[in-house]
Structures are given as structure tokens and as C-alpha cells.
């Protein structure tokens, strides 16, 4: 198979496409993650932190040009708990970030207003009381504000506390994330498959074209072979005709020299004449076939 594909570049492409499909799936998963975290400017580090918080449902969205950390309570479940939000701002890795000077504030949203809970330069921690009375519609929110910077860059954040894991019929962030991930993953696989199928179709068409060309080549080869065969046949018939013609000439000479009597002469001349006509007809047919081949 490999050997054959090595000989057939189209087949090689097809095999490569099939092998690349899982890679395309994996890439699509990364794409899904990026889709979920697309609005988060802290990258995967945040997600890593969040993944360790099994019972937390968090969404992170930019709001008003500032980073808002938002978590929603599980629908239909009573959660009374105190959570601790810990935010670590991005270390000074880039000059642009380093220029974000000034005070930072963490604010929490209780469902009706923002509450400033703490201020710090690089790392901030605050306790948030979560009840089921609040945030069904708006959710619980927290945000980091720097008055001098339009966007605050967070290196990582974590929520901790004793709160209940949501029930299975509750759509959590991670459900949404997982659904989205699976959905996008499937889309990715589908796109990969579609890509592969498209390539396969193109490839098959090329193979068919190639086979068609092969068929054409075969036909051409057959035509050339027939042409050569015709040439030989024409030459053969021509030789035979020349032979008959020479025999006719010789017979006439014999007749003129009275080496054959008239009846023999007539019989043989009639036979030669028949042979000559037959061969001439044969020759004409062969030449006609050759002419038609040249025209084609």
C-alpha cells in the first residue's frame, strides 16, 4: 500500500489527509478552548486554576473595557456559601503591562451593586458571600479595576470555599464549556473530515483523470501499434502485388516468346488479374484505414 502510494502521489495525499484528521481534531479542541477563553486575557493559566476548583462555575468576560470575572449560581439549587476569590495580576513580562501603574481594586457584584472589597498592587484576595437569593439573573460577578489601564491583565485567579457541586440537570459553565468544546471539537473533526473528503474527491477525480489519461495513452499506444501493423500489412500486400505483377510480366514475355500456349496464357492471366484486383482492393482498404487513423 505504502509502496503503491509512493508510486501514486494522489494516493499519498489521500493517506496524508486521513492521518492528519486526528491532528485536525486536536487543533480544533485547542480552538474550542480558545473560543471559551477568547475573552480572557490571562490565558490557560487561569483555566488550569479553575479546573482544580471542581465545584465552581465561572465565566470570565470583559465588561466596559475591564476584566470581569463572573460566576453563576447553579440554577434550581440552594447555595449558601462563602467563597474566596484570589487574583494574581500578570507579572511584569511586557513593558506595556508594566506601565499599568496605579491602584487596583477588586469589586464584587451582589446582584444590585458593585462592592469594592480590597485593593492591592499585584495580588488580591476577597471573600464573597454567595446565597441563592442573588444573582439568578445576573450571576455573581467580580472585577478588577485599574483606573489607569483600560484592560487589566490577570495572570491567574482561583475561587475556593465550601460549596455544593451542581446537579446533573443544571447547566454549568463547564457543561457549556464541555458542550462547546465537544461541539467545536466535532465541528473541527467534521471540518477535517470534510477537508479530507474534499481532498479525496479531488484526488479521486485526479485518479480518474489519470486513469482516463492512461486509457488515452493505451488507446494511443494501440493506435500506434495498429498503425505500425498496417504499415507492415501494406508493405506485405504491396510486395505480394509486385510479385503478381512480375509474374504477369513474365507470363506475357513467355507468351510473346511462345513458351506458353494461348489457352494457358489466358487462364493464367485471368488468375493473375483476379489476384491483382483482390490485392489492390486489400491495399486500398488498408490505406483507407491508415488515412482514417491519421485524420483521427
Amino acid at each position, binding site marked *: 500500500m505504502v509502496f503503491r502510494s509512493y508510486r501514486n502521489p494522489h494516493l499519498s495525499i489521500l493517506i496524508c489527509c486521513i492521518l492528519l484528521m486526528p491532528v485536525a481534531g486536536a487543533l480544533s479542541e485547542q480552538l474550542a478552548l480558545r473560543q471559551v477563553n477568547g475573552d480572557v486575557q490571562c490565558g490557560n493559566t487561569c483555566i488550569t486554576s479553575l479546573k482544580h476548583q471542581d465545584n465552581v462555575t465561572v465565566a470570565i468576560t470583559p465588561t466596559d473595557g475591564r476584566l470581569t470575572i463572573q460566576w453563576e449560581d447553579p440554577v434550581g439549587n440552594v447555595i449558601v456559601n462563602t467563597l474566596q476569590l484570589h487574583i494574581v495580576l500578570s507579572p511584569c513580562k511586557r513593558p506595556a503591562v508594566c506601565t499599568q501603574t496605579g491602584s487596583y481594586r477588586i469589586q464584587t457584584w451582589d446582584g444590585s451593586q458593585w462592592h469594592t472589597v480590597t485593593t492591592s498592587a499585584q495580588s488580591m484576595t476577597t471573600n464573597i458571600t454567595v446565597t441563592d437569593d442573588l444573582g439568578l439573573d445576573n450571576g455573581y460577578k467580580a472585577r478588577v479595576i485599574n483606573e489607569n489601564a483600560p484592560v487589566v491583565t490577570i495572570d491567574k485567579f482561583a475561587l475556593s470555599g465550601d460549596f455544593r457541586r451542581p446537579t446533573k440537570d443544571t447547566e454549568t459553565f463547564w457543561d457549556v464549556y464541555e458542550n462547546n468544546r465537544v461541539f467545536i471539537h466535532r465541528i473541527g473533526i467534521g471540518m477535517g473530515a470534510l477537508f479530507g473528503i474534499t481532498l479525496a474527491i479531488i484526488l479521486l477525480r485526479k485518479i480518474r483523470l489519470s486513469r482516463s489519461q492512461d486509457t488515452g495513452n493505451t488507446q494511443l499506444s494501440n493506435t500506434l501499434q495498429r498503425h505500425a501493423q498496417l504499415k507492415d500489412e501494406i508493405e506485405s500486400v504491396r510486395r505480394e502485388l509486385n510479385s503478381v505483377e512480375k509474374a504477369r510480366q513474365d507470363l*506475357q514475355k513467355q507468351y510473346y516468346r511462345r513458351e506458353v500456349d494461348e489457352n494457358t496464357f*489466358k487462364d493464367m*492471366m485471368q488468375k493473375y488479374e483476379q489476384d491483382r484486383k483482390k490485392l489492390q482492393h486489400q491495399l486500398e482498404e488498408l490505406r483507407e484505414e491508415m488515412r482514417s487513423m491519421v485524420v483521427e
Partner: protein
Amino acid sequence: MTDSIQRIPSGIPGLDDLISGGFVNGTINMVTGKTGTAKSTFCAQFINEGAAQQQEGTLYITSEETRLSILRQVNQFGWDFASLEQQELLQILEVPPFEVKSVIGKISEALESMQVNRLVIDSVSMFEVSLEDRHSIRKFLFTLFQRLRELGVVALITSEIPERSEGLSPYGAEEFMVDAIIKLQYQELADIQRNLVVRKMRMTDHSPNIHPFEIGSTGIQLKQI
């Protein structure tokens, strides 16, 4: 054998080589063949050779055609018989077949009026038709040929071989009386369809072969075998 014999050229290219140089002087030569074998052309070419080339006196007796018809026919080969007549090198004599008994007399008159070396009678077969029986035919021919021999001319007479006949003449008479027989044949299976055979020629070592010939723009021409 041929050294002491005087001959005249036939005027047929290629023929003289087959008959040791030409027709023997004072002989009666018969050209025979079926219809369409070019007997008349042969005779006209023989006359043209004598009159136009050799400046000899010639007599052309026709029992089949008119003088004008002959003039017209030979003109296609470039032979101007009318001019030869004016130069008194040729005399064309029309003798109807039914005037067979006056033929010899008319020939004698003509020969007395001019010096003739060559004579053509085309054809004796037509005179034979007017005769009553085979004996009369033989008698007529014998008398005619005797007269011609006395005159010392080279005579060329034509005889018509009927279709499907294997003989040399219609009544099988003249071939025994003439000195030479040239048979013209038509062989449709051959590439060159006309040919001639010298069947007999006294005092001549002639070719025994069949010789194809063609009629071109200058008359009969024999082809090499």
C-alpha cells in the same frame, strides 16, 4: 540468304528488325487479322513510308472505304496523303467490291500511268465476297497475284479473319498464294493488347515470336518484348 535480296523498309518501327530488313522486292505480302487489329493503319503506314520517306510511287486500292475517308484517317498520324497525291507519289483508287472482275484491269491502268513501287489492296476479302464460289476466289486471287508479280511491285494486301475463326483468311485461299503473312491480333488480357506475328515470309529469316505494338500519334510502333 538475305544479302542478295533487295528489300524495302516497311515503315513500321521495329518490324524491319524482325524480317531481316524489310519486305522483299516483288513479293505479295498479306496483312491479316480480325476487325479492329489495325490492318488499314498498317497499310497506310507502309504507303506513307514509300511515298513520303522513300519518294516512291505508291498505289492504294480500297474496296471498303472512300478516298476522303482514308485521307481523313491518315491525317491523324500526320500523314498528308493529299499532298502526296499532288506530288504524284500516291494514287488512291476506289474499287467497289462488286466490280471484282475489273479490278485487275484498273490496277494495270493505274500502274501504267505512274511508276509504282508499293501497292496496297485493302482488302481482298471484300472482292472475295462478290465471287460465287471458292474456285472463283482462287482463280481471281491467282490471276491478281500473277499480275502483281509481273509488275514487280511490293504488294501489301489485307484479309479479314472472321471472329471465332482460327484461319488466316475467310476462305482459306490467299494464305497459300502470298509470299508473306503478317497476322495482327488483339489480346485483351495483355497489357499491350495488340500484337503481330510474322507467320510466313519467304526468303526471310523472320522472328517466330509474338510482338506487341501500340498505335501512337505517329502510327504503329512495335514494343520490345
